[in-house]
């Protein structure tokens, strides 16, 4: 059985393809990209999917999600997170280690992968903890975690404050070929804060987290990467200062990569004016100047990737006083459309968008994804760039509803998600 994605605009930055072509899938793999695949083969073991007007791109990769399993299954499971990812156009996701127990040993990594196989949805790539129990004190057993199937290391959710530990972790991870993703936050400046420190925090009477709490740690990590000559990935960049630091470092030739999340260019701290707990996230929503800098960083290549930082929470954690509310927002089902707004507004080209949501995340995580080259797993996303839709969290596949984008009208949507040649999601 052949699956032919016919007549769409195929964009595969890994092969510098951007033209109307037909993608042919056989036995779960890409078997070729051709022009004018004959229409008449339909009905003879060939299924033809009309992709005219659509973008046909390598399956999107969300390199930064939280699946909450094990430990917080009432917020999300590997299965519901995988379903949400499929609806959002993702074929691969990386999930962070702050579960309960923490993914700091091979049994948790193996458990997550077993749940992912049972879910039979997207490819799930566990990111294991750098330090035991995310305490920033003792390194986890990197080799064992790598054997178990972890693709990267991160203490995401918590910064690694001890610079010596950070350096050792980076050097050791490098010797095993594991990428390291850093959550940049100086707790001496951020502890006790609930939102960006600004006029808005002053008016709301909420303790603030200054932008420099992020900037300082980004600069430290750049110094470590520069000194050790080892590449390092900066997670969820939210400030103009971080964008500038990463840009300057790249210009000097430091092997640094960085991601941001859609909320950092779609929202500002003004969204908190009504104490909306769905807008409470770390790092916090920043000012309009920061959001502009993030867009500029995406445009000029300073920021390599867009990741959702999908962080499900239930009403138990969110329907409370702002200062008591948990941090984080879900994003798997809105990430593509919010990012596509950057194409509609002329900030990114379609190709750049695909790079930031597929090609680059694959390269940073060093996984054989993000491409439509012949022979690879047929992970493909079909995007209807003109599809307008209204965000309705009650229809989300995610178990949680903590999205600040409820009711937003968005343009651009994944209408088909194909994982290893199987159509896992279809709403054409």
């Amino acid at each position, binding site marked *: 059985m052949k699956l032919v994605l016919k007549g769409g605009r195929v964009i595969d930055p890994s092969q510098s393809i951007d033209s109307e072509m037909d993608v042919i899938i056989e036995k779960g793999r890409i078997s070729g990209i051709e022009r004018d695949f004959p229409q008449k083969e339909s009905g003879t073991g060939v299924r033809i999917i009309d992709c005219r007007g659509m973008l046909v791109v390598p399956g999107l990769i969300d390199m930064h999600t939280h699946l909450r399993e094990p430990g917080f299954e009432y917020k999300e499971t590997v299965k519901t997170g995988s379903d949400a990812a499929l609806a959002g156009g993702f074929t691969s996701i990386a999930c962070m280690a702050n579960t309960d127990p923490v993914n700091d040993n091979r049994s948790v990594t193996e458990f997550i992968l077993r749940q992912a196989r049972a879910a039979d949805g997207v490819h799930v790539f566990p990111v294991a903890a750098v330090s035991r129990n995310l305490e920033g004190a003792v390194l986890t057993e990197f080799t064992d975690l790598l054997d178990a199937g972890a693709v990267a290391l991160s203490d995401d959710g918590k910064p690694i404050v001890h610079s010596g530990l950070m350096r050792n972790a980076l050097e050791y991870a490098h010797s095993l070929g594991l990428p390291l993703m850093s959550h940049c936050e100086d707790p001496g400046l951020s502890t*006790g804060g609930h939102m960006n420190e600004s006029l808005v925090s002053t008016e709301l009477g909420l303790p603030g987290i200054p932008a420099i709490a992020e900037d300082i740690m980004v600069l430290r990590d750049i110094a470590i990467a520069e000194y050790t000559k080892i590449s390092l990935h900066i997670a969820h960049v939210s400030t103009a200062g971080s964008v500038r630091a990463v840009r300057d470092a790249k210009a000097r030739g430091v092997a640094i990569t960085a991601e941001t999340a859609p909320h950092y260019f779609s929202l500002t701290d003004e969204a908190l004016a009504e104490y909306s707990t769905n807008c409470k996230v770390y790092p916090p929503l920043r000012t309009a100047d920061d959001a502009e800098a993030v867009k500029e960083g995406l445009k000029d290549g300073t920021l390599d990737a867009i990741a959702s930082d999908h962080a499900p929470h239930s009403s138990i954690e969110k329907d409370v006083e702002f200062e008591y509310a948990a941090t984080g927002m879900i994003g798997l089902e809105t990430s593509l459309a919010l990012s596509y707004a950057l194409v509609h507004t002329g900030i990114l080209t379609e190709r750049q968008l695909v790079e930031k949501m597929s090609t680059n995340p694959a390269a940073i995580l060093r996984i054989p994804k993000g491409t439509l080259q012949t022979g690879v797993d047929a992970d493909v996303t079909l995007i209807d760039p003109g599809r307008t839709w209204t965000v309705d969290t009650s229809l989300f596949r995610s178990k949680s509803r903590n999205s600040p984008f409820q009711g937003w009208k968005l343009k651009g949507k994944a209408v088909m998600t194909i994982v290893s040649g199987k159509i896992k999601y279809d709403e054409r």
Partner: protein
Amino acid sequence: MKLPRKDILGLKDVPRDEIALILDTAESLKEISSRPIKKVPTLRGKTVINLFYEPSTRTRTSFEIAAKRLSADAINISTSTSSVVKGETLIDTAMTLDSMNPDIIVIRHGASGAPHILAKLLPQSIINAGDGAHEHPTQALLDMLTIRERKGAVEGLTVAIVGDIAHSRVARSNIYGLTTMGAQVRICGPAMMIPRGIEKLGVSVFTSMDEAIANADVIMMLRIQFERQNNVMFPSTREYARNYCLQAENLRHTRKDVLIMHPGPINRGIEIAPDIADGPHSAILDQVANGVAVRMALLYLLSGEQE
């Protein structure tokens, strides 16, 4: 008479005519508290719940007395623990109270924005009796009533607010109220106690107390909010007092008729010297008396009853 709003959550968006109406009403109700029988039937049959998540002496008592002098039934719920620690969420508590059909809920809470949760959820009028470091609107209203009584008007005056501005809900409500009523507001404190961007609220910022109080008509001293300090913001109370404790010698360079105010509770010898707190310029006890009148006015105006 009635205020054109359901709740009083803060003074940020309350226009001048509404503040004037509240102050005028308070002035007219003040006389009730000096009668031998300090009670009028205005709010008979109304139920006011005082829901206090933070310890309070003057504000809670003041609201209770205000309700009782208007013949409303006042119920006090005090808990020093937060809704989270206690196990019941604020929303569950709110729904529980709603089922008993009160008319007005007064809430004090340590978390900024807690009154907004009730206001969104419940049909009752919500009065913010202080939320976190956000607002304390009834305090600012009673301060303005006191200033108006002693100075004739608020407009055109210069008011210096000195102390821990960053953690002060009193400072925020006074900044909004006083600037709306046409006063010039100066704020003063060590730079780390000046919250970011506050100059955009139309105030001038000082770090020297003597400069801030020079030629001021009113000096408002604030308590250091030790309970809100996450990390030590100054070396010691002794060191703080050296620079920001209002003492007799500071008053030598101020106007002779300067009015000295403090929202209480005062820490004698830390932000204000005892002889100043008790001295001829002090309006601290007038403020407390006016608190009852302002809260009577709000309960009355939010109930929308005709006299």
